[in-house]
């Protein structure tokens, strides 16, 4: 039984995460009446936030309810952040299935709730540069974005200024500085790494750039360095949409937020314009519709594309925005080389150093920038890592038992250093998502079939990443060094999937124009990571927010002029 909500909003946004929150804030602040539909439920801080919960307060002491995870979250549990403290922020895999070819495993990590993945993200916030936006002009591979850094710069300014990003100023053209709060400090081991690496290789090592507040900002207190961000944050000291962008929208009085609304498709009228969306009520499974003059999809890269693919009609037999067969294609995700590290012998101590920074160090991309050309592959990679004392893990390597054993555990804490390299995945037509012909989710909506693998450029880049990581391990003179893993990460593991509804100037080879507007449908927009043309080696979320703010600016202006 379908029930229609006859109210027609000025704009309807699907998704309440990093992108949706920004679009909601900007549009409501510009006077528009906005409906936000979120597939998941609201989270309640008193019930769902677990920062400051001690391991001894948990049933499995923090070692996870393995049975429940295997049964309900067999994919999500592979994510480091889906643990006993924070599994409630990740989806139930049986309600939200997807498929992939046997030889191309894909790990799809999702959070469905008001706030999306912004509760659990790692908060790394880097600006892209024209090394990303104009990558194709530089190396001839595939396409440029339909705008440049100069066009996005004011929106990076706006986003950083509002949410608060703590970082150091480094003056690097390949990773521009922004509107920063004071940077976090480095641990002793990270400082040592900075000294060694900068001296030996000339690569810039800096405190990581994170959307945590180091000073009070816009009514939110500074971080208090408990380093448990992905468990929730009562003081709202890092960016998540429920505490930062969505309240700003709500305070205008023009926001209507409806949770537990699983959107299935865009409603199209006979003139080929969007009229709203169809959705399924999450708990009752009732079918409903919501209507608006403008529809914005911000459901996360693959989910927005999924909605478009599922919006079929006579006019759009392959889905809305897919008249050119590009929708679903050019899927990208970063690949990482992990596991490298070892003990810093000089920092062994029996004295505890204070801990709690929710950020380690970053080494900005140096390869294929300036004069560092590498002919074996295009584009490049960056490193991130951290260094800190062992809490008690060293106890597993100490023989014996009794008071003497405990004394040894307490006597000296080894100091560990770890480093990861993260590389850019180039866009390929062959990496794509499509609707699975058979599988449906718990609400009867076709699931995605995800078909993606890394190719020549990634494998060539991996060789260089591996060499550099080994060189760093050697230079650090680590005790018991662990080499990096033999394999790069499985596709999807880094949760930076983007592309599949890319922007471009040519409607034949792109889905969206320079303002995230679907070429085929003027009043339909896609503002999340689906719009990305290239990925860079840097985390996408800050760029997603800036692009969303820019798209919202355009929407509000066009709406005001009556053009949509």
């Amino acid at each position, binding site marked *: 039984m379908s029930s229609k909500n006859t109210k027609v909003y000025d704009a309807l946004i699907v998704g309440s995460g990093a992108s949706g929150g920004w679009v909601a804030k900007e549009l409501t602040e510009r006077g528009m009446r906005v409906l936000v539909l979120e597939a998941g439920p609201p989270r309640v801080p008193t019930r769902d936030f677990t920062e400051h919960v001690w391991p001894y307060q948990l049933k499995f002491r923090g070692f996870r309810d393995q049975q429940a995870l295997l049964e309900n979250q067999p994919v999500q549990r592979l994510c480091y952040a889906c643990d006993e403290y924070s599994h409630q922020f990740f989806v139930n895999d049986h309600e939200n299935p997807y498929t992939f070819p046997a030889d191309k495993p894909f*790990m799809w990590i999702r959070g469905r709730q008001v706030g999306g993945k912004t509760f659990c993200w790692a908060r790394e916030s880097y600006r892209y540069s024209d090394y990303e936006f104009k990558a194709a002009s530089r190396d001839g591979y595939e396409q440029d974005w339909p705008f440049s850094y100069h066009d996005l710069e004011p929106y990076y300014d706006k986003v950083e200024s509002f949410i608060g990003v703590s970082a150091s100023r480094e003056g690097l053209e390949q990773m521009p500085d922004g509107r920063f709060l004071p940077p976090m400090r480095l641990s002793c081991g990270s400082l040592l790494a900075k000294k060694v690496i900068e001296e030996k290789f000339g690569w810039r090592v800096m405190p990581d750039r994170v959307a945590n507040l180091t000073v009070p900002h816009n009514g939110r207190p500074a971080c208090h360095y408990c380093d448990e961000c992905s468990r929730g944050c009562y003081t709202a000291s890092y960016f998540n949409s429920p505490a930062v962008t969505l309240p700003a929208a709500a305070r205008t009085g023009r926001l209507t937020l409806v949770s537990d609304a699983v959107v299935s498709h865009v409603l199209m009228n006979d003139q080929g314009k969007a009229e709203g969306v169809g959705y399924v009520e999450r708990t009752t499974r009732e079918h409903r519709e919501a209507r608006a003059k403008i529809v914005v999809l911000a459901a996360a890269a693959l989910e927005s594309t999924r909605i478009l693919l599922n919006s079929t009609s006579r006019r759009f037999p392959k889905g809305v925005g897919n008249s050119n067969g590009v929708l679903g294609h050019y899927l990208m995700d970063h690949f990482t080389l992990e596991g490298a590290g070892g003990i810093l012998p000089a920092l062994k101590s029996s004295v505890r150093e204070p801990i709690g920074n929710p950020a380690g160090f970053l080494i900005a991309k140096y390869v294929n920038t300036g004069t560092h050309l590498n002919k074996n592959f295009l584009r490049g990679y960056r490193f991130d890592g951290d260094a800190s004392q062992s809490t008690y893990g060293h106890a597993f390597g100490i023989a014996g038992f009794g008071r003497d054993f405990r004394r040894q555990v307490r006597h000296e804490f080894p100091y560990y250093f770890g480093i990861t390299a993260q590389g850019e995945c180039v866009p390929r037509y062959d990496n794509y998502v499509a609707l699975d012909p058979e599988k449906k989710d718990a609400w009867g909506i076709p699931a995605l079939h995800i078909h993606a693998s890394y190719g020549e450029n990634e494998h060539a880049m991996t060789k260089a990443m591996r060499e550099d990581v080994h060189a760093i391990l050697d230079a650090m003179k680590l005790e018991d060094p662990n080499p990096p893993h033999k394999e790069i990460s499985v596709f999807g593991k880094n949760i930076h999937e983007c592309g599949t509804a890319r922007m471009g100037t040519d409607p034949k080879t792109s889905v969206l124009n320079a303002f995230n507007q679907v070429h085929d449908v003027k009043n339909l927009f896609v503002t999340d990571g689906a719009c990305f043309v290239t990925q860079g080696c840097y985390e996408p979320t800050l760029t997603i927010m800036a692009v969303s703010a820019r798209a919202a600016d355009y929407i509000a202006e066009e709406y005001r002029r009556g053009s949509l």
Partner: protein
Amino acid sequence: MSKIKVTAKRPATGNSQLTIQNSEFRILTRREWLLKLGEAAVLLGFTGTAPAPDAAESSLFGLPDAEPASALPPGLYEPSSDHLAHVLASDSLFHAVPPGSETDYLRPRTGPYQPQFFSPSEFQVVRRLVSLMLGEHDDGSVAASPGDDHENVVAVVVEWIDLRVASAAGIRQAAHGLSPEHRALTIAFHGNAAAVEELETAQPERTCHEGLQWLADESTKRHGKPFLELSEEQHTALLGEISDARPKDAPENAGTRFFRFIKHEIIRGFYTSRAGLKEIDYQGNAFHAESPGCGHDQS
């Protein structure tokens, strides 16, 4: 900038006092501190126990009280100091969550612990083993300092071991229940099948039963008594034979496998307990006024 060490005093007479000392030993009043930090809420260092601020203190943190929930739609929230007061006041062993919540936490118990896996007599043997392996003082306590046993840490560890072993069958079943795609994805994620095979095949129940049997047999064989009745010297000798500190060429047996398992779980159960975290001077889950960093020069 000088490092600031903060301690909160439990109010003696209801006149709440929060005094802060910086490393130059100048005492700041609370008002100065709050003006200095603006709205920052960060004030208490971890001392191993959480003091229970009274109601008057819960607005100490300088933030406006949380707006009533009806001011924002469900799922949105304002920064709040209430939770800080709540968790700081949460001296109890269990994090109370409304029944029926999605989040599953330990529920308060109303009676003594009922072992899920070990029989009552086995439970006693494991209890003794844990106590010996943690190392006892003359008074039988395993606290860091004699007489300092503010919680029964042996019970905490033994209950963890019991839970761990009792959960194993369900874990194996769930692991075998993985779809072929999910199993393949798990292998691709790890780069090998070791992790998933461990979930599918680990049988700590067997390790424990065989180990307990070995201890019982050896105690009878050597001393004509059950394990629990052996003297301290006899215990130490027996444990020494199966300890991971024994000579490298000494053979493996049910006892050595049991020892290895129990020690692994003692480490996990002890160093996540309140007493264990205090003993290793754990610095996490704390509140800092500024980014903690190296004590050395950052420039």
